[in-house]
């Protein structure tokens, strides 16, 4: 049966489907979904750099996490140093290899130098990645899941449900987030878990508003009406139809939010509210290096660079994703 090519210029002619499938094996089929997103990102150099940075940091963090949780720093001790325990022979505040300061000259065993208790800075940087990434991803995940659900329900039902949920999130939004997180941690406990939860909660309004604005327009689409007419449950409509169709901007925001969360938790650690010693974390390293800025500036520079590198990586990736997913920019 022959079918005239419809009015939609994007529509692939039906009859050609077999030939296109054969000739273009790598041809992207859907304009949505993970595979499509990746294929778009690959075309964008900036996004690609972001992917590499994030991928690299993630690998380092994975290594650190495996060593910490499974081997209890056995690998670290074998090839480097224990990042937590003070060494027996004290080489405090050594500079990086090839440099000199009042405490001595850099040695190859400590390529980036040592901290105020003689621990190897490089090892602590590597193991600090675990904390940074865990915090970044967990806080974002809490904000993402919470914000998406609240926003989707709010936008889908409208009316008083919408009013209540939106006023509630605006209340969270109105409190300065650092004050909120510190108050939260003071109430529940000063450790990393509550830092993550606290930062996650402050991220809920961001995602909530983003997804709600999308849902309000998608709610009116015919396929939602069609699903209702087919006897589909509201819950199912929200999870299967509304959320997947509103997800592109959320993905971008989530990527940026990971960087933001890392930064916030580093700030919290600096204030003494994040990871507690001796757990290696970048913010805490910065905090400890405060007293040694003049005699050993490299002590504070390294964790600062690590934070910078990671956050920039996520921001580049987020920007790249935004461009890749924006239908107005690419075709």
């Amino acid at each position: 049966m022959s079918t005239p090519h419809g009015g939609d210029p994007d529509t692939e002619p039906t009859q050609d489907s077999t030939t296109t499938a054969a000739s273009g094996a790598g041809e992207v089929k859907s304009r949505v979904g993970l595979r499509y997103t990746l294929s778009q990102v690959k075309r964008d150099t900036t996004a690609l750099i972001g992917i590499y940075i994030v991928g690299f940091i993630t690998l380092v963090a994975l290594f650190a996490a495996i060593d910490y949780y499974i081997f209890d720093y056995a690998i670290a001790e074998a090839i480097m140093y224990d990042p937590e325990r003070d060494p027996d022979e004290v080489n405090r505040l050594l500079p990086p290899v090839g440099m000199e300061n009042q405490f001595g000259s850099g040695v190859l065993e400590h390529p980036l130098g040592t901290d105020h208790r003689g621990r190897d800075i490089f090892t602590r940087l590597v193991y600090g990645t675990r904390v940074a990434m865990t915090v970044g991803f967990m806080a974002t995940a809490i904000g993402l899941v919470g914000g998406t659900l609240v926003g989707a329900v709010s936008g889908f039902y409208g009316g008083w449900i919408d009013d209540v949920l939106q006023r509630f999130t605006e209340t969270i939004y109105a409190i300065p987030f650092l004050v909120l997180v510190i108050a939260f941690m003071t109430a529940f406990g000063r450790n990393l878990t509550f830092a993550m939860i606290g930062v996650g909660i402050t991220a809920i309004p961001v995602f909530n508003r983003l997804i709600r604005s999308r849902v309000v327009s998608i709610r009116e689409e015919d396929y939602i009406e069609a699903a209702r007419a087919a006897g589909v449950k509201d819950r199912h409509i929200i999870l299967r139809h509304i959320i997947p169709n509103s997800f592109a901007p959320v993905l971008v925001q989530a990527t940026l939010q990971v960087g933001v969360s890392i930064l916030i938790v580093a700030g919290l650690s600096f204030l003494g509210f994040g990871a507690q010693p001796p757990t290696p974390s970048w913010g805490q390293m910065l905090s400890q290096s405060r007293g040694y800025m003049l005699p050993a500036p490299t002590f504070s520079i390294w964790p600062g660079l690590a934070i910078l590198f990671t956050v920039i990586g996520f921001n580049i990736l987020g920007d790249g994703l935004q461009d890749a997913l924006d239908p107005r920019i690419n075709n």
Partner: protein
Amino acid sequence: MTTPLLTVDNLKTQFFTEDGTVRAVDGISFDVYPGEIVGLVGESGAGKSVATSSILRLVDSPGEIVDGTITFKEKTLFGLEAGPDGEPRPSEEMLTEEEMRKEVRGREIAIIFQDPMESLNPVFTVGGQLREFIELNRDLPTEEAKQEAIDMLREVGIPDPENRYDEYPHQFSGGMRQRVLIAMAIACRPDLIIADEPTTALDVTVEGQILELVAELQEKYDTAFIWVTHDMSVVAEICDRVNVMYLGEIIEQAHVDDLFYNTKHPYTQALLNSIPRPDETIEELDPIKGVMPEAINPPSGCRFHSRCPEAREVCQRVHPEPRDLSANDRPHNAACVKYDVFDVGYDASPPLETDATGGFSAGLTQTESEAEADGGDR
């Protein structure tokens, strides 16, 4: 014939807006018998789509069904009874929202929407959506549902259904998508399918194919249809019986042959005269004069009198209820006082001066309001 499959009695659906109450559907009654195709015809804004969503109880706030009874296979889809305080309340037999969702929507009554471009979710594959729908409404395990989905796609004339199963809606043309939606509608073997202007968004050749397909499937599964359209030629093609709607009311109700060859109501006649024909020039075309009035404040008397070429003074005063004017054994109801059965003195009444009767000239204002009305479909 046997007992009706669906009975709609005195259905009233109103929208409570800030400007006032819009009586989108104002007391319509009709039956659908098993296996027949019933047309619901009228201009944009006549209340056709609201009537169909009322049947499935899918009217959104600020709209509400305020009166009437809808019975489907001895189930009360909607019904009111007097509460203890005299206020009407939903009757006890009326299905709950839960029962509507689980038992009626999709399973017993399916609906095909106007715009096939928008009725499929763009982020999932066509086959996946069809499979999910079958799983949901027929309680089949995933593998069987998939096989069933592929069979359905083949049945509605999608070539190479195994491969097209994994494609996304944007890879289908409009006609193909409408076929998918038809597959979705018949997949659960409902007794009634509501087709809400399913061919309006398609070009004429595809429209022909779709009508052919529907006729074929209708014969095979013996499904009843409510076919909503504004296109008289589609009605002639496919329908068994026709209800003509104007401003929320059914003004003529007849077998399709009687409607075309023995037209009773001036509005139906005007609709038929509005169809462009190849043997007529644009000057010869005789469209209905004026625009349909707002349903918020319908004209007094007969609602069509403001545009009726045969309007007389009495039409402003008397609101006609449809009566049987049949010349043969098939019922043929129409609501126009010009017939003697109404006996309200139409013949003695002086003709009314309106646009349609040629009293006033149709000026610029009318053209503007027509342009406005064009954007307001649905």
